[in-house]
């Protein structure tokens, strides 16, 4: 018995150990970006952080790009070019170039990641306006050399302002593989990306709540969202419309909105989620009941009689929600996730799979009902 175990141990030693590398022999990829290449199908850009890089800063950041036909090819090329071995263990952000996403060409590229949870476990997916390199470089600043915070920053921005979507790789793959809802990704770009038209149209809303004046040459900002039909990007929603869509998907927590009042003046209010939206779907008709708390921040006194203001704001939100849904229906994107409720009506997977939900969605009639609890300067700005 003992001899047997000894022989096994000996075999174990003969077999060699699991491959390992010292922790300082790696360079850690923080962000991965993919866009259309010029000579090859993909241009892969990675933001690499080398811990312990220089004497005075602990971390050194570099942006490296390679053109390739597939991810593995790009990985090999980058590895060959870079002195340390690249590790994706700490990758936190995947940026998909808008040019690629419009054709859905990123799916073939991303196939590599589906089988590698150590890669996608941390990834947050954003859509960017190319070039990706500019976006990544815009993120590197001297103020905070620790770029790993970008990921949480995107999440925090979404949580705190509602102006951008916060989508992990898991949710993104779920949206692509399943027809219950369509993906909505945070939208980022360097400088002039704001020129992209919002698909809802009508009034021109800024992507961000205010109007950001960009002065430096490279400065990346994230706001608004890119919406998808399956794996194809079909348009962009600005910050306000993103906020309204998130209200229906129950991803909205709080945010600020400007309203134009009947007398032409503007009002700033902070909105808070009060409870999960109630969505009912029956015979091609849906009702959405939202309950929000609105705290008027500006002007200092209520501009109208409380009930009249409440009714006005509710109506305005309902109208805007209907307009956003209409725009989304037009581009065949179920970003609000009505499919989740349609799936509940089936008692077998085969029936659900046979159902052409997207066709139903295009003609879906939805009535929104918003209830606001109005307060004035209670929670502060």
């Amino acid at each position: 018995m003992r001899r047997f175990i000894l022989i096994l141990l000996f075999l174990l030693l003969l077999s060699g150990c699991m491959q390992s590398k010292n922790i300082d022999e790696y360079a850690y990829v923080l962000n991965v970006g993919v866009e259309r290449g010029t000579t090859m199908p993909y241009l892969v850009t990675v933001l690499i952080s080398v811990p312990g890089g220089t004497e005075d800063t602990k971390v050194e950041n570099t942006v490296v790009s390679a053109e390739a036909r597939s991810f593995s090819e790009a990985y090999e090329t980058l590895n060959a070019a870079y002195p340390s071995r690249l590790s994706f263990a700490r990758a936190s952000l995947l940026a998909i170039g808008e040019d690629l996403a419009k054709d859905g060409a990123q799916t073939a590229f991303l196939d590599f990641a589906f089988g590698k949870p150590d890669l996608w476990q941390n990834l947050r997916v954003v859509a960017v306006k190319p070039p990706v390199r500019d976006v990544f470089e815009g993120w590197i600043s001297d103020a905070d050399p620790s770029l790993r915070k970008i990921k949480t920053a995107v999440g925090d921005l979404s949580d705190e302002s509602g102006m951008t979507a916060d989508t992990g790789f898991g949710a993104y793959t779920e949206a692509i593989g399943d027809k219950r809802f369509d993906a909505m990704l945070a939208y980022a770009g360097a400088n002039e990306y704001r020129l992209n038209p919002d698909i809802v149209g009508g009034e021109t809303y800024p992507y961000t709540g205010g109007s950001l004046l960009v002065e430096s040459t490279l400065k990346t900002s994230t706001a608004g969202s890119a919406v998808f039909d399956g794996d194809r990007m079909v348009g962009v929603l600005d910050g306000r419309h993103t906020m309204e869509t998130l209200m229906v998907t129950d991803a909205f927590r709080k945010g600020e909105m400007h309203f134009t009042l009947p007398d032409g003046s503007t009002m700033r209010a902070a909105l808070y989620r009060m409870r999960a939206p109630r969505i009912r779907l029956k015979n091609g008709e849906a009702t959405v009941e939202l309950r929000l708390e609105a705290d008027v921040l500006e002007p200092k006194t209520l501009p109208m009689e409380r009930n009249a203001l409440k009714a006005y704001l509710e109506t305005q939100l309902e109208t805007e929600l209907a307009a956003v849904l209409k725009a989304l229906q037009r581009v065949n994107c179920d970003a609000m996730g009505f499919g989740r409720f349609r799936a509940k009506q089936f008692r077998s997977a085969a029936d659900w799979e046979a159902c052409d939900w997207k066709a139903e969605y295009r003609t879906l009639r939805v009535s929104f009902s918003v209830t606001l609890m109005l307060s004035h300067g209670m929670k502060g700005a």
Partner: protein
Amino acid sequence: MKHAIRTLFQFDQPYRRFELLETEPRGTPSFFARRQTRRAKIKAAHGRMDQRLTANLAWIRERFHTDVNTDVILRPFKLGGTVDALAVSMNGMADDSKIAEFILRPAFRVAVDGVARAKLPSYFREHALSMHETELTDRREAVEQAITEGRTAILLDGVKEAILCDTRGFVSRPVGEPQNEMTIMGPKEAFTENIRTNVTLLRRIVKRSDFVCEFRDSGGTNRTRLALCYLDGTVNPALLDEVRRRLDTISTDMRLTVGRVEQLIEDYTYLPLPQMLKTERPDRAASAVMDGRIALLVEGCPQAGVLPITIGTLMASGEDLDMRQPVGTVVLLIRMIGALLSTYLPAYFLALALHHPGQLSGEILETVVASRAMVFLPLWMEMIFLLLVFQLVREAGLRVPGSIGQAIGIIGGLLLGQAAVSANIVSTVVLIIVALTGLGNFAIPDYSAQVAAAYYRLLLCIAASLAGLLGIMVTGLCATAVMCSAKSFGVPFFAPYSPVTTHSEHLRFRTRIRNRAGTSDPLNPEGRRA
């Protein structure tokens, strides 16, 4: 062919291992077979004393090699002026003044006229000998052993029986303070090399009539005196018989100590964990005895062996029960965490750094990498090197006298560590981890268990550098299983947690002292807590 297959599948060795919990209801096995055969051998070798003094003298000269061994004092005298007699004692072991004052002086004065030769020894004992502890025997073995112990044998001509008088008076160390098991609240007494003193120390704490100190001598040529101390009627009789049986199997020419006796009678030779608790504190041994355990004292060894033990015994310190329950619970918890840290932390760090860097957060990763910037040793080598250095400093500190030992600790810890970091041999993070490990190691109260933890630590480190967390898991699981299968004198190591015993002690970390009436449950003694 059929036969070959049958033999392949049918080799069987009976699995007969002493199991206290399991075998107890089925009755006790017979134990004394070997002891009797050994006695028979001794009888053949020694036999009985002779009636003639000259024959006995010749036997003593031969046994003790008196031609070269000048330690043996042969003092011929005439009992009552008429009967030829001989007092035999060992120089240095026996007290000269006691022999002169209480044996020789009354021997010269006693009148033995008219006393029959056969009744002379008992007459002398009853009428003249002013010694407290005396014994009559005609067994040569007993006489021989008595002389080696420092007693005096009085041999009379024409009488078979010898009188053994307790004249032991050799120098010994006074009762001192414990050196290794420090406590803040407990008593400050420690065992000495004198087995008699040790028994007395125990008796002073266990003031019960059923407290038995069973003196026995070990097997082999150098028959060291052992004492089994237990509460008769409380201790599990099956356990007692088993311990006696195992002690009887000892046949060695080595000098015996508690540690050696443990290895001679234990079950699992290759288990790093001790199977007997060695303590230098009489209060600890006494509490164990009162809990239904057995304390084993060995002549010349300033420690007592307590058996059987469980993992809880090894993790307990003498003053645990002196502390209040909530505080005691926290202290015990910290000790457990310390033990776990000391065993697993270096291996876990190695596994993460070598195989799973993604598991470390960015901040830790950066700190670790920055600290390793100029270190030339691979990480696993660095860790194992530092662990060995730590053991080295510790061993060096142990073996040199007190104040220098502390100095070595400081030199090793501060100077060497600092120098190694600035010479880029080791990185600060690894140094911190090894220091934490060392601190955790000292939280384990028992020295043998500390050494066992160091053994497992090294094993886990090697496994972790080979296969990361997989290696740690495999090694840890095997070690846990082996410990679960191990028993200390029939008591499973993890009792009362696994197997769970009837008392609900395992549900609480440290029970209220009010609930600890009675004896320890896993040993199945009388009057146990249930």
